[in-house]
């Protein structure tokens, strides 16, 4: 009897890209829900819009590049990228910014570099940075945290704002928008206000910004679940959060009036989202275990630097992109010691 041959191993694979991405999406659910709770329908509208644009751009690029569409659309990587972009932007961002940002992310940052697996930079962060730099005013229009039980805008009002740029009658942008806690601290410290006075406003909660602390907690929960499911490894999040905690703690100890405490840093802005969902992006990050720790630590350090002294109040996107550039070099110097070999460097060449 004759048989077809295949190479070993023969045991059926247990994972797939689709499965990995789907689990990342599950991991994003608690954080997304928390954001929607505090910032209203806009968050969900943005997610839906960004994911749609991401899928459409991905399909278009695959067609243009003459690649099979089905396996790459169903791998869900475009959904994850769109989703992450949506979580990074203000909840009432006009639709065309999402369109430009996500389309740029997918077409340029992902497909012009070769598509899935080949992009040196995190596409969602590239999209976000393009939006922030191109449309600085719109990208700072955050609203004060409310609750979905008592939302600032109804669902239809939200749609009107996002797609038609129309605020409900009698409202002005100045009246509905508010600085984020990180913005508030940066501008406050910039004009010489003491930190204590800044944080003594309703914008702030128990440890960090009101609402933001819960959002970060939710992303932390989702991230820990991903760790538990072995979808991500601990190194990048630990490196990022550890470095951010240590460096901010050091400065806070030196001058608590000028630097927020480390816990505030960890639960502000996109810290947890960045640590568990962005710094862990395997494609654009480091691949070695030690490298991931370093990569994460670099992101944490840069986040602190940008938040403290940078032109932007939040620095996760820039920090990740800067470290993306470093990833190949980091990988080069963090190869693990191979079983039965001495550590690299002691090894004689040749």
């Amino acid at each position, binding site marked *: 009897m004759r048989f077809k*041959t295949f190479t*070993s*191993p*023969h*045991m059926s694979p247990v*994972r797939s890209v689709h499965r990995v991405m789907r689990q990342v999406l599950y991991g994003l659910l608690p954080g997304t829900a928390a954001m929607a709770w505090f910032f209203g329908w806009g968050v969900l509208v943005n997610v839906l819009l960004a994911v749609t644009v991401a899928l459409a751009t991905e399909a278009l690029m695959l067609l243009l590049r003459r690649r099979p569409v089905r396996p790459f659309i169903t791998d869900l990587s475009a959904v994850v990228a769109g989703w992450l972009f949506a979580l990074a932007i203000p909840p009432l961002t006009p639709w065309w910014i999402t369109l430009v940002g996500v389309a740029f992310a997918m077409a340029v940052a992902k497909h012009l570099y070769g598509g899935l697996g080949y992009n040196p930079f995190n596409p969602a962060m590239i999209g976000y940075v393009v939006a922030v730099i191109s449309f600085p005013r719109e990208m700072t229009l955050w609203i004060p945290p409310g609750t979905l039980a008592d939302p600032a805008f109804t669902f239809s009002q939200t749609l009107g704002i996002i797609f038609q740029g129309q605020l409900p009658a009698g409202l002005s942008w100045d009246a509905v928008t508010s600085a984020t806690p990180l913005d508030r601290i940066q501008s406050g410290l910039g004009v010489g206000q003491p930190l204590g006075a800044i944080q003594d406003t309703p914008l702030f909660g128990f440890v960090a910004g009101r609402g933001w602390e819960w959002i970060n907690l939710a992303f932390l929960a989702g991230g820990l679940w991903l760790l538990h499911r072995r979808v991500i490894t601990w190194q990048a999040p630990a490196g990022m959060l550890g470095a951010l905690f240590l460096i901010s703690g050091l400065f806070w100890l030196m001058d608590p009036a000028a630097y927020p405490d480390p816990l505030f840093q960890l639960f502000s802005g996109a810290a947890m989202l960045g640590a568990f969902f962005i710094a862990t992006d395997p494609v654009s990050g480091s691949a070695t*275990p030690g490298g991931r720790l370093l990569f994460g630590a670099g992101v944490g350090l840069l986040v602190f630097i940008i938040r403290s002294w940078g032109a932007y109040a939040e620095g996760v996107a820039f920090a990740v992109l800067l470290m993306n550039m470093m990833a190949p070099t980091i990988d080069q110097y963090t190869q693990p010691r191979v079983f*039965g070999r001495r550590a690299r460097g002691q090894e004689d060449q040749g």
Partner: protein
Amino acid sequence: MTATPHKLWQFHGGLKLPDHKAESTGGPVVTPPLAERLILPLRQHIGQPAQACVQQGQRVFKGQIIARCDTYVGAHIHAPTSGRVVAIGDHPVPHPSGLSAPCITLEPDGEDDWGDCRMRPLGEDEAADPTTLRNRVREAGIVGLGGAAFPAAVKLNPRPGQAIDTLIVNGAECEPYITCDDMLMRTRAREIIAGLLLVQRTLGPARCLIGIEDNKPEALRAMTEALGGEEQDNIRIVALPSIYPTGGERQLIRVLTGREVPSDGLPADVGVVCHNVATLAAIHRAVHHGEPLISRIVTVTGSGVRSPRNLQVPIGTPIAHLVAHAGGYTEAVERLIMGGPMMGFALPSDEVPIIKGGNCVLAAEAGEVSAPEPVMPCIRCGECVRVCPVRLLPQQLYWHTRAKEFDKAQDHNLFDCIECGCCAHVCPSNIPLVQYFRFAKNEIWAQERERKQADAARMRHELRRQRLEREKREKAERMNRKRQASGSGGASGAADAAKKAAVQAALERAQARKAAKQDASGSDAS
């Protein structure tokens, strides 16, 4: 279970796999009737192939040496039963290449007649002599039965100055589906222990460690019982966590002793010698019963056979015969694998025979084995890094191999890869990583061979050029001399020079021949 507590170490990575062992351990080990033909490849071991020492048509007795291998690393091949040699020539063999190789085909006569070919059982005193034991193991053609088929006698002969302090018995059997060692331990534990005692006396290690994965409680119990009264402090049975590939020699040594065998070294370099349980049983049978290695237990299993079981069969039994005595194939059988599902290779046909190192025949249905699904790009998730027991970076190796940057692949220690398959198994993009690595290794070997051949050709060309020039020069000189001789009656100085030149030329020719020969043999050996 009374396994002695023993400190265990860990190796990096590895996988917990569904073990699929229960399918084939339900019944006893069955001895099926003899096959109509036995096919005995001349190369069933690591090292040089054996040379046939029988003629076509010759009648042979059971246990008679039919192919000799007198190199140090090699093993004789014995007739598994009495019968007639019907063919000596190429036949498909169980090899990943699917190619044919020289084999002796034997037609059993059903007598199973030893003639006078059974070796004389050795007494305890005789077997205590290391040289006698080694020679007996060599005469019996015993190779490592765990799969690698390394001649066992070599491992009984440590290099001078190499102290062996630990003898490890490999009963881990970590690969899913395979149960032949498990069944051997359950049913013939005493033989294993008897073989162990023989080897222990020869090597004189301070301790013996028998490593058995904890998914084989019956085997652990049987081995403990067999050790029984003889259990001393220096022989320990150790239950190992069932993590693939614990049974890999280097991984097992790490787990049991904490020592890492150097990448370019052997276990003996860290004071360890490792033998498979079945090899020890074979040594016992050769020494105490005078039986050469002519049969073994083979697991025939998988969803593609109707009654998975273990069979005790003569070496050379065709796979088709094994499957027939395991209930035959199911309708939906899809793939036939020699060995386990992680490291075994798929066979194109079931006419190939079982060889000494063949532990398992796995016939699988489509749902049981990986399908050639679409391969996605590497997303650098690092899961392969996490599971690699050698701590390689499979994804980097993959990039370099894909780009045919073989020098960089070697910088990433390509040749330390043991091809265990963990990386490919967990790859979410379904990339056949092991296939890439084998390809890279083969390309590098081929390049080295080519380079050596090119070097040899260049040298031959250079020597030819020199020779032609020299001949031209000599011819000119001869003409010159002739002219002078005819002109002035000959000068003795010129005659001397001619003689010297002739001697020189002969010397150069000899050297050139020698150099060319060395090159040729050098490229052969690679």
